[in-house]
């Protein structure tokens, strides 16, 4: 017979005030399995744990029940106490007599009766516990970072500086992400590319970083420490090993009508192109959709002018399997297309543009060389209206959430406009100004006070074209009157939203996303960069709207998680996972279809179909156990006998 020791904690007065702990001890000592029972003020304290260790020795105890707080708090504490005394840590259970008893029951008699009941259940349960050994799994010490924006670059650099290998994956032709598109940054007005490009170059030159551009993730298998990631580099028709990045092809290409994604489609680019001059790697790609060689079957100018013989029209997509131990997802965001806002012209008016488009317009590397001019007639706008919350905080048409960055970048835009056109007028139509970051509020004040940007509280009702200018119908809610502004240009602060293929990638990775499509962190406060899938981490705006400083913080945080994972020699996995008994398995494979992780495989044993659990992949949810008709699946810790004992012990 098992020799159970019961330890009841007072938790100061947290438990003892409502539960008569001595009565609990007296009651359970009557059970034949219980060989020892004792109460103490703080079981989790060192003397409390010493009490348990001593009792294990003195009374030859082989099962322990600690009646105290929630097992979510202190189960590991007591498991370690057992381990120190040479007892298997899976032979202790906890009765939650604080959170689920003393704190929710005022009546002392009732609380005591409930506590006795809860402890008895654990005694009956723990008898059915077997010693378990943690499962050892090796770690492949290479990290995959998906997304080459600032959040991904930062994570890659930090991991690489920690002497671990990193593969940095980017689907576009260059790393740099959204930050490369920006002109100046708030709240310091330093040039975005000036601070970003050194990091891009550092990533490219780092001996521990391998950059793969034009590449996307197709499939992910495996588990923490041992992921197999199938990736595909699309056909780019340029041989990266030969190309010297001289740019002659781009200059000579006769097809220059493709909309330029980098400028937010306010300008055009060549069919063979580098997205921007500082692209890393500096290797152009051919956009087959606009290349005359592909569309009309003739041209080939780039091939003729290329001094390095790097053009390869026969290029095909390249597939590869990457073996990595951890994955950082840093896929960023996209700007919402405000075309659904027909009241703002549905993006049909040439001088109604988005924030990101305005960003390119004021950038010295942008289509106008940094000159602020109207896209319709090239005139310098004398009045600009900045419309806030287009698609943000708008349940009717857009998203319920706040995009977080628009208040700040709009202040920056208005400020830069005023620096370019001092006699011009800038209006900001806002709902609330949200500036909670360091030096952010001061930045807003600077826009209002030093640069005379006019802030007007109210949501814009409509924008109408009126000859060569635009009429903005809004209101000033602080004064309480409708307002009409005639403007030459309108900038819509369009919402930050998840990339359109974010959900597809989430399904490939097996991570979850919230109602808005942003990736879900494992805990909103305490696990901000972990996902619920161990070994996959989040960085940047793919998890929610973020500015640059926060994205960088998260990149570093994700990197530190990867480094602490890689600092381990091997990984230990909970042994509380499914195990299928082949003899009793009928081969119905219901479990296989239930498993969310692909952790059950079909095997043939002596000509019969059987299911087999893959211990490395199993996450221990138990969904397969409850569908198994033949009760062929064991699930230590949550086996039927253990659960039924706990359920029926005191009925």
């Amino acid at each position: 017979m098992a020799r159970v020791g019961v330890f009841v904690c007072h938790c100061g007065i947290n438990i003892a005030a409502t539960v008569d702990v001595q009565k609990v001890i007296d009651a359970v000592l009557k059970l034949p399995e219980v060989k020892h029972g004792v109460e103490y003020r703080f079981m989790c304290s060192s003397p409390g744990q010493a009490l348990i260790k001593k009792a294990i020795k003195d009374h030859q105890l082989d099962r322990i029940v600690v009646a105290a707080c929630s097992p979510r708090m202190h189960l590991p504490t007591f498991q370690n106490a057992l381990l120190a005394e040479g007892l298997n840590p899976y032979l202790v259970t906890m009765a939650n007599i604080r959170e689920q008893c003393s704190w929710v029951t005022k009546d002392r008699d009732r609380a005591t009766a409930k506590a006795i009941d809860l402890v008895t259940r654990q005694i009956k349960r723990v008898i059915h516990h077997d010693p378990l050994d943690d499962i050892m799994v090796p770690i492949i010490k290479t990290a995959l970072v998906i997304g080459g924006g600032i959040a991904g670059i930062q994570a890659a650099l930090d991991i690489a500086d920690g002497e671990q290998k990193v593969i940095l994956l980017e689907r576009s032709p260059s790393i740099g992400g959204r930050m490369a598109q920006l002109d100046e940054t708030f709240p310091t007005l330093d040039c975005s590319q000036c601070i970003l490009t050194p990091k891009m170059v550092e990533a490219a030159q780092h001996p521990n970083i391998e950059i793969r551009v034009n590449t996307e993730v197709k499939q992910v298998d495996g588990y923490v420490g041992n992921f197999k990631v199938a990736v595909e580099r699309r056909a780019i028709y340029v041989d990266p090993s030969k190309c010297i990045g001289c740019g002659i092809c781009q200059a000579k290409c006769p097809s220059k009508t493709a909309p330029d994604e980098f400028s937010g489609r306010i300008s055009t680019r060549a069919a063979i192109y580098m997205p921007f001059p500082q692209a890393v790697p500096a290797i152009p790609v051919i956009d087959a959709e606009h290349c005359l060689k592909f569309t009309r079957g003739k041209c080939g100018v780039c091939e003729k002018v290329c001094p390095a013989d790097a053009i390869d029209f026969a290029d095909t997509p390249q597939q590869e399997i990457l073996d990595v131990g951890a994955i950082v997802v840093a896929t960023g965001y996209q700007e919402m297309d405000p075309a659904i806002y027909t009241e703002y012209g549905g993006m049909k008016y040439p001088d109604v543009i988005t924030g990101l488009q305005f960003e390119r317009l004021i950038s010295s590397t942008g289509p106008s060389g940094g000159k602020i001019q109207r896209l319709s007639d090239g005139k310098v706008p004398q009045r600009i209206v900045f419309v806030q919350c287009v698609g943000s905080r708008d349940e009717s048409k857009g998203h319920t959430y706040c995009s977080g960055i628009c208040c700040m970048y709009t202040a920056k835009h208005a400020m830069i406009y005023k620096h370019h056109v001092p006699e011009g007028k800038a209006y900001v139509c806002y709902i609330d100004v949200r500036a909670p970051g360091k030096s952010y509020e001061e930045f807003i004040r600077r826009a209002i006070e030093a640069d005379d940007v006019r802030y007007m509280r109210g949501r814009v009702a409509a924008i109408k074209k009126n000859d060569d200018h635009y009429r903005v119908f809004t209101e000033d809610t602080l004064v309480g009157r409708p307002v009409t502004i005639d403007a030459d240009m309108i900038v819509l602060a369009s919402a930050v939203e998840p990339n359109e293929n974010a959900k597809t990638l989430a399904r490939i990775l097996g991570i979850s996303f919230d109602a808005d499509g942003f990736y879900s962190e494992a805990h909103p406060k305490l696990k901000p960069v972990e996902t619920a899938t161990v070994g996959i981490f989040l960085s940047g705006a793919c998890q929610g709207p973020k500015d640059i400083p926060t994205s960088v913080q998260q990149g570093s945080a994700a990197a530190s998680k990867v480094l602490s994972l890689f600092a381990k020699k091997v990984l230990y996995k909970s042994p509380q996972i499914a195990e299928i008994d082949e003899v009793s398995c009928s081969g119905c494979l219901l479990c296989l279809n239930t498993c969310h992780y692909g952790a059950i495989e079909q095997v043939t044993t002596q000509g019969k179909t059987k299911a087999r659990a893959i211990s490395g992949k199993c996450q221990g949810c138990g969904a397969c156990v409850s569908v198994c008709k033949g009760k062929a699946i064991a699930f230590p810790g949550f086996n039927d006998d253990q659960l039924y004992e706990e359920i029926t012990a005191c009925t």
Partner: protein
Amino acid sequence: MHMSKDPKILAVLCKWCSYAGADLAGTSRFEYPSNIRIIQVPCSGRIDPLMIFKALIDGYDGILISGCHPGDCHYGTGNYFAQRRLAIARKLLETIGIDPKRLFFTWISAAEGKRFAEICADFHDHLLSLADSPKALAQEGIDR
């Protein structure tokens, strides 16, 4: 009529969301009926309908099952499996003559301590309004 004056409830809660929600009810000191016993499972997907039948026959007056909210399941889809399975379990309860209202299924997140306490109190009240408990029926050998 054997109407239970203090219905006994079995709550089977997933460890990631609902068990944590029950803990939060305690941390926030939201009082609820004491005659409720909480069992932790890794995921609501682990819950086997047989557990429910056995518990009801063994003397519980009601079964409260809760998992993570849709989309929040730690194991992706376990809560959906639970939902479908329990819908069928309810039908089976009806077939064997047990009021299916004795089985209550919901989603409680780790942040919903207050909601957990309220649901316990409401379910307790609700069970009071029901007729004979399954065990009382069995003891009297009433053939339905």
